[in-house]
């Protein structure tokens, strides 16, 4: 195998393995508690607060951060920006693992997980935004699987099927963009039904548009953030072409992120004006809203622009991390912090430590699979047999 010669017999007890091993063991215990004791045994979910961090963090944020898949593949295969090709495979892999994790997290969150296919096979609740989200996520998971499969097939040496799937690239990308447009925006549309519960500053009829734009921002930033991490952690896997393209990607995606953030900032201001919510800005929630808008949208927009203009790659990468934090903050605000703002503190939700534990467990599982795949399959480098076909 390409470049695999140097990773020969090493001790199993590397720091990564020990730490993730402990987390996984612990997570399995929590899993048993969850499915024998019910949701009440592991979570602080209540009748007032039916959705907690499994929805706010694992689902809403997970799906947003997995948007890199459709953003990168659309840029390269549809908009013809071939010089960013190196970004596609890692982004697709992250997206696939991200969506798979979402489904796993959902089976912890819903009361009767084995009925998850019911909306498709028993009764279709077509009036529900959640139905649309479900069907799109389900289809997109299949699309992502197919989009990633060439990497696995190259690894397995199955050339014929690989070239067959490879020919579908453009069609799959178009499908991916359609499905992503629909469900990324619909995750925001989920909250349209609860204007009386979500704080007016976050509630807007533009919620679907906001969610879609922030998904693009999240996708662009995740490609950069993750690229920077991979560069440190899997430096031995990157081939020359990928190393060279990396800086190009940082400048190009950073520029795009800066523009999209500027556009998002503008639509947010339009949203506040449309609902005439200015007077809320000076309340406690208003200051928190301003923190999000200025600190996690305005600031990264500026820093990306400076980074690109002055070609400061480190600044761009730190900004990418900061923007990702902003996306997490935004989703948590809408799903948890600004949701049920009208209730007294005693009725509000704060996650149980076991809820956090299960989230950490699931993310750790994702990391393990990512590491496994990246160290075996041609994700961060081109397979020597297929260099010309890209």
């Amino acid at each position: 195998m390409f470049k695999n010669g140097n990773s020969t017999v090493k001790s199993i007890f590397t720091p990564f393995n020990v730490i993730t091993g402990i987390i996984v063991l612990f997570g399995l215990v929590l899993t048993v508690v969850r499915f024998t004791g019910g949701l009440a045994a592991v979570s602080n979910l209540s009748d007032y607060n039916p959705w907690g961090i499994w929805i706010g963090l694992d689902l809403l944020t997970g799906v947003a951060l997995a948007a890199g898949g459709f953003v990168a593949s659309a840029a390269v295969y549809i908009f013809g920006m071939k010089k960013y090709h190196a970004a596609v495979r890692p982004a697709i892999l992250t997206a696939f693992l991200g969506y798979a994790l979402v489904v796993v997290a959902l089976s912890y969150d819903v009361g009767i997980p084995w009925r998850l296919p019911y909306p498709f096979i028993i009764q279709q609740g077509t009036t529900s935004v959640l139905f649309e989200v479900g069907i799109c996520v389900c289809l997109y998971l299949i699309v992502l699987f197919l989009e990633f499969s060439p990497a696995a097939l190259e690894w397995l040496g199955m050339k014929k099927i690989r070239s067959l799937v490879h020919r579908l690239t453009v069609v799959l990308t178009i499908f991916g963009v359609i499905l992503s447009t629909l469900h990324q925006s619909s995750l925001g549309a989920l909250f349209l039904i609860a204007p009386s519960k979500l704080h007016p500053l976050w509630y807007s009829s533009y919620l679907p548009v906001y969610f879609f734009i922030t998904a693009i921002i999240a996708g662009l930033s995740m490609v950069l953030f993750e690229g920077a991490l991979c560069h440190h952690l899997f430096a031995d896997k990157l081939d020359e072409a990928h190393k060279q393209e990396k800086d190009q990607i940082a400048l190009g995606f950073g520029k795009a992120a800066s523009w999209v953030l500027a556009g998002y900032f503008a639509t947010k201001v339009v949203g506040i004006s449309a609902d005439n919510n200015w007077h809320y800005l000076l309340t406690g929630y208003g200051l928190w809203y301003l923190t999000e808008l200025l600190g996690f949208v305005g600031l990264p927009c500026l820093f990306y622009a400076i980074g690109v203009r002055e070609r400061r790659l480190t600044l761009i990468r730190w900004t990418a991390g900061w923007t990702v934090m902003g996306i997490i903050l935004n989703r948590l605000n809408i799903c948890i912090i600004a949701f049920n703002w009208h209730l007294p503190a005693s009725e509000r939700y704060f996650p149980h430590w076991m809820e956090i534990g299960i989230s950490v467990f699931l993310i750790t599982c994702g990391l393990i699979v990512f590491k496994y795949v990246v160290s075996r399959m041609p994700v961060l480098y081109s397979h020597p047999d297929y260099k010309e076909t890209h």
Partner: protein
Amino acid sequence: MSISRRKFISWISAGCTSLICTTAHGAKKQFKGYPDSFGILHDTTICIGCRRCEDACNSVNNLPAPEKPFTDLSILDKKRRTTTKAYTVVNKYENKDKNKASVFRKSQCNHCLEPACASACFVKAFKKTKEGPVTYDPKVCVGCRYCMIACPFEIPTYEYDEPLTPRVMKCTMCHDLIKKDKLPACVEICPTGSLKFGKRDALIKYARERISKFPDRYIDHIYGEHEMGGTSWLYISNLSFNEMGMREDLGITPAPELTAGALGAVPVVVSLWPVLLTGIYAINRRKEKLAEREKAEAVSSAVEAAKAGREKVSLDKVRGSDG
């Protein structure tokens, strides 16, 4: 690669279309409930807070017995909400005017004409029946709890402590009894007539008459006539509804309408996106091909020019040697 004008225009148009679709709304028709559907009118001015409705509800639905008996009225001092063990609760609200007595209000599912829970459910577990009650089918429920997010009255509750078969629990308006021409259990037992069962239209008419006959006794508002598009349960009171923990800022838009616009955008995206994206792809492909051809032509012409130049030089050399 710099951004070409064509690419820029294609991006702008993509952005505009997405904005248009998300703001587009379907044609609106007002649904005023099923004709001749039933409702219950709760006149809070007559309620004495005896909790017998809670008792009757508990036994008709086979719910577990409470810790303290229903005759214990000290419980009314604390604000309670519906739970998996109580589909209905009565709360006491002090009158700001100290001379006036405190008011009791029974809360339970309001059985909206266009229920948020039914609109939000992705497996159609909730159904607005033509008789009036909103029913729930635990046999299909996945347990996503989006109904609880959606409900503006914060009524549905969930069996969080049930590991295998948790259900959403809420008032059924005694649908089974109504179908047998019987009264809902709470109405049947109410000793003061604070709960009145009947056709919703007739109840509204009756409530209006009461209000106009006793203008000092009632606030001029029937809660539930228009709230969230109207509910099968209706309330009249002498204390403002806000003061009784009933939100007056819910508006009159039925819940399904809140998400109709976003759902209406789906077919637009599905039909437009493929055309748009394929178009952008095709334009880029063509540009690439043209660039390749131009490059090939430039190279070949350069080669030819070089060849011609060399020939000329060699010819000149020949001529020179001749001369």
